[in-house]
Structures are given as structure tokens and as C-alpha cells.
């Protein structure tokens, strides 16, 4: 996710969570891709998860209510796609394959937590744990 021009105060985090993608057993590295390509790889996963968790309630709690204020009728299906993890992964594999330029036979997506350590001028990130990415999306 990007931090835009309208961002607030930040602190260095002692722990950070990172989405990691393994294709055919090999980890994709952000260093191998341009910023645009990396966005195209990462954003759909992150936003799918957010949409999967929040999309339906976002419609019922906010969108439907606010549109009703202006007497505008709406349907859930216009604002929320019901997409299972398996359906998403099938389509995502195709998209990913076209970005990285090779066939995606096996894909694994993890959510890994790292601890940030700083000693003098050296920054280090120590892996604490990794979990199946889609666990957090349900």
C-alpha cells in the first residue's frame, strides 16, 4: 500500500508484517521488479483480503445508508464481488504469470512478521513467524 501526500505522523515500527509470494518454490523479490510491476503483484492480494473481510459490511453499513439519504436505490452486487480464495488464486496466477513472464505452477502466499533491530548504523529485520496469507482474510 502506498503512503500518499496526505499522510500523518509515523514512527519506526519494532515489528512489521510483509506479504511474501513464492512462485514454484522461489520467493519473488521486490528488487527484481519496477515499482509499477511490484504494485501490480502486491496490491491485488492486499486489497482482495481487505475487500473479502470488509467489503460486504462496508456496503451495508456505509454505502447503502449514505445512498439512501439521497433516495438512491442500490444493490450489494454493484459494490461487492463474492470471490472465494480459490477463485481469486486461479485468476491471480494468470495475472502474475503475465507480469513475471513465466508459468506459475505452484503459488504460496505468506504473511510474515519481522522484528526490526538497529545497531549503530545497521538495520536488521529478523523473521518472527510466517502464516498462510488467507488465514487473516476470513
Amino acid at each position, binding site marked *: 500500500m*502506498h503512503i500518499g501526500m*496526505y499522510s500523518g505522523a509515523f514512527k519506526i515500527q519494532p515489528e*512489521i508484517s510483509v506479504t511474501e509470494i513464492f512462485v514454484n518454490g522461489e*520467493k519473488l523479490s521486490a528488487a527484481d521488479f519496477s*515499482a*509499477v510491476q511490484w504494485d501490480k503483484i502486491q496490491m491485488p492480494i492486499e486489497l482482495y483480503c481487505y475487500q473479502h473481510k470488509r467489503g460486504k459490511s462496508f456496503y451495508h453499513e456505509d454505502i447503502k445508508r*449514505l445512498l439512501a439519504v439521497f433516495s438512491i436505490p442500490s444493490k450489494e452486487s*454493484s459494490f461487492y464481488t463474492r470471490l472465494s480464495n480459490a477463485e481469486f488464486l486461479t485468476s491471480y496466477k494468470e495475472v502474475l504469470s503475465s507480469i513475471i513472464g513465466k508459468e506459475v505452477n505452484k503459488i504460496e502466499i505468506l504473511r510474515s512478521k519481522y522484528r526490526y533491530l538497529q545497531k549503530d548504523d545497521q538495520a536488521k529485520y529478523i*523473521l518472527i513467524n510466517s502464516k498462510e496469507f488467507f488465514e487473516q482474510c476470513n
Partner: protein
Amino acid sequence: MQLTGSIRLKIIRQYCLIFYGLMIFKWLNGMFLYQLQPIFFFTTLDFTTWLVMLTNIHKWLLQESWRLLFADFIFYILPLIYYLVNIKKPRLVFITALVMLVVNYIYVTVYCSYPSNSLQGHIAWLFFPFLFLSQSIKTFWFLFNGLRYYFLYFFFSAGIWKLAQQGFFYTETMSGVLQLQHKSLLTDSGRESFRADIYNWLITHPIISSLLYRGATIAELFFGMGFFTKRYDYILALIFLIFLVFNVLIMRIAYWEVTPFLLTLFYSKLVIPETESKINQPNLQSNSG
């Protein structure tokens, strides 16, 4: 110098040049709708986007890839048509601009509801068609200046926001921003990366990295000067270009699609025309100042 018909046409031509330059950049980077191959749409907290989503056009586009290509085609062909209409059939300028306004509004909101784009970076394509709706040189001048003020507000408000949210006052803010923005790169310990080394150095030196954040905030606040005088518009244009380059180098965010607003700074000193003249008058081309 007064704004004339030929200068107006020059501004439109330069808008088209920027638009098509960015089109090539986007095509090379696989950023056309048909190249993005969106899997689903993402609903944001934006009322105008909801109005487009009510039509279900975003779902219709998702069903077939040729529809995405068709949407790209319509969006990218319109500025050229508008420019040609200005030369060959000026009486059709209003209707062409109106079509462009509607198409841009739908295309941009749909484009940004697929998970890889933000609406903020596409505001030029939403606002410039309003300028193109003008049917007289005088109206064009007023709208053009209106765009300039909006552009100033866009940057100035970002500076105010950083003060209000107090990010400006925390030395650690930029280090925290860099850590979050580049976390994939920073945690990839198995790879040597020159960029990661630079980001890590900035993160571990918050006083130096905060200079970048505070410098950017002061530069954004400087845009407020433009509300009172046009004297520094060239400096503002230069600050904007530096801001774009640094955004790519430090943040890896491309804001290139805001560049059409540069035109409002370059041509800001044009004076309002004394007489009202319609853009479809036959002596348009000879009406240069």
C-alpha cells in the same frame, strides 16, 4: 500578453502532448486497463465512484477483456479528436468536450476501482475536460485560472495536513514512512539491493531523513504563495518537477499524471482578453497576440 485563440490552441496541443507521452509510458509499463487484467473491483470511500458503480459498468468491463481494450481506446482517442475538432470543426468543441468529460469521469473512476491505482494521481483527467467545455476565450481564461488555484490548493493542503497531523514535528516520521513503504524490499535479506541500502541508511538516520519530509512540507506550503501572486509560478513549477522526481526516487510513487497542471503555471501570466470572442469564430487562427 493576452490569451488569444492561437495560445488557447497551443495549450490544448501541449495538453495532448503530455497526455500521449504519458499514454506511451503507461503502455510500456502495462498500465492500460486491458494490460492490468483486473480480477475484481475495490470499493473505496468515495461518493462519485459509487455513482459510477451503481451503473455496473465496472462489472460489465470485467467480463470480457475486449471491453477493457475498448474502454482504453475510447479514453485515449478523445484528446486527439478534441484537438482536431478545434482545428476543423470548432462548432463541435462543446459536445466533444462534454463527451470527454463523461468518458474521463467513468474511465478514471472505474480504472481506480481496480486494485492498483489511486484517484488522487488522476485528477488532471477529471478536471481538464471542464476547461475544454468553454466556448469563449474569456471563459477559457477563467476556468484555466480556476485549475491553477485548484492545483495550488492540492499541494498547499497537503502541507497543511502534514502540520495538522503533526508528522512535520516528529523527527522519526520519514524513517517510519520509508520503513512501511519499502518493507518488502527491506525484509528481503536474501538479496543485495542498492536501493534497500539507501532506504536503510535513511531509516537509521532519522535527522537526515526528516530533512526530506520537512523540506517537502515547506515546499508544499510554498504553493500557498501562489494564491496571492503569480510572480513565483516558475519556481512553483520547478518545485513540482523536483517533487515528482523525488517521489519516484525516494518513495517509488509515480505522480506523473498530475503534470498537465504544469501548464496552468507556465501560462498563468496571460491576461484576460478585453473583448469577448467565441472560439468557433473563423478568424481564430489570425487572432494571435
